[in-house]
């Protein structure tokens, strides 16, 4: 998932890894209209944004729509980003805003039936769940871990997703989130401690 998916590439298949260019340079090039630079940014940050949505939005189509909305908004606003080196945290603010919009939209429709005011960023209550075939395949462990991670705060949820699911190393996580590697390791450690506590002894 971390491979560069260039906008100028004819294929959607991951390209060969290239020496990593700094986000700031890519942002400047993308804002100047270089579509490939933005493609690289999207490929880098898809796991971060999907990690943010993990456990909160469980319908694949919704997550895909939200991811697309986040990147489209980022592209529109790119020229207004004052500190290109802070692209990651800036993108997460957009993701948060889009998720809130998503939930407000959901609650406007669901509220007519439930009546109650929405909590901020709730875990998706109307999860239709996996289909019968997926339900069979989904292990109990997977379900418990997914629910536990989904119930965690943003900073732990995103880091755990990036480590466990996107298979990223702490230094990569730190770079994407705009934090120090020591902070990423600490979040990961605390998140895993919470997860271990939630899960109890594993076989």
């Amino acid at each position, binding site marked *: 998932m971390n491979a560069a998916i260039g*906008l100028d590439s004819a294929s959607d298949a991951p390209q060969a890894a290239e020496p990593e260019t700094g986000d700031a340079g890519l942002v400047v090039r993308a804002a100047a209209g270089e579509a490939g630079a933005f493609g690289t940014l999207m490929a880098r940050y*898809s796991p971060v944004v999907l990690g943010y949505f993990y456990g909160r939005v469980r319908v694949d189509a919704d997550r895909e729509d939200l991811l697309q909305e986040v990147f*489209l908004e980022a592209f*529109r*606003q790119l*020229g*207004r980003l004052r500190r290109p080196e802070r692209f990651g945290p800036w993108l997460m603010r957009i993701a948060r805003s889009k998720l809130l919009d998503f939930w407000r939209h959901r609650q406007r429709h669901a509220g007519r039936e439930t009546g109650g005011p929405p909590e901020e960023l709730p875990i998706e209550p109307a999860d239709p769940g996996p289909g019968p075939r997926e339900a069979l395949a989904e292990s109990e462990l997977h379900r418990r871990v*997914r629910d536990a991670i989904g119930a965690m705060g943003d900073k732990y949820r995103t880091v755990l997703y990036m480590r466990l699911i996107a298979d990223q190393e702490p230094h990569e996580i730190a770079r994407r989130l705009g934090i120090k590697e020591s902070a990423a390791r600490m979040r*990961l*450690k605390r998140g895993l401690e919470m997860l271990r506590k939630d899960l109890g002894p594993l076989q």
Partner: protein
Amino acid sequence: MPTEHDDLIEKLKPAFAADRQRDERIARAAVRRVRDKIVAGEVAPARGWDWGWLISGLRPAVALTAACALAIIALSWFATGRATNATSSVYVSFAAEQTGRGTADRPFNSLERGTTQVKPGGTLNVKSGATAQPIRIEKPMRLVAVDGQVRIGKL
């Protein structure tokens, strides 16, 4: 650098292989859709200062300031007795504090406020004392000196 939770990570990773594949598919699809929109010119970077983001950022601060201002106005309104409803029996003492509410223990400090607040046909109870302020009565009411002589007008 090995950590104390590496064993947990290794145990959990296989459980998420399907998630990983599914999310890679989602990411590819979303990136493709964004790419298509950019290439088709349906979306372009905006230029200039982003007032919308500034406004949305300020919105909570503005709402909080407005709420505080309203609370202060309401408190001062009550504190000065302005919100006291017209009542049939109102008390005035020229020596009272400005924060009076027209009651016997917290009387108004001016005849003007007393006559304004008393109901038509009600009683304006004036505590003993003297005031140079004139009195203007525009509705029927009883004027009572409750505990001694009251002098109104030129002293």
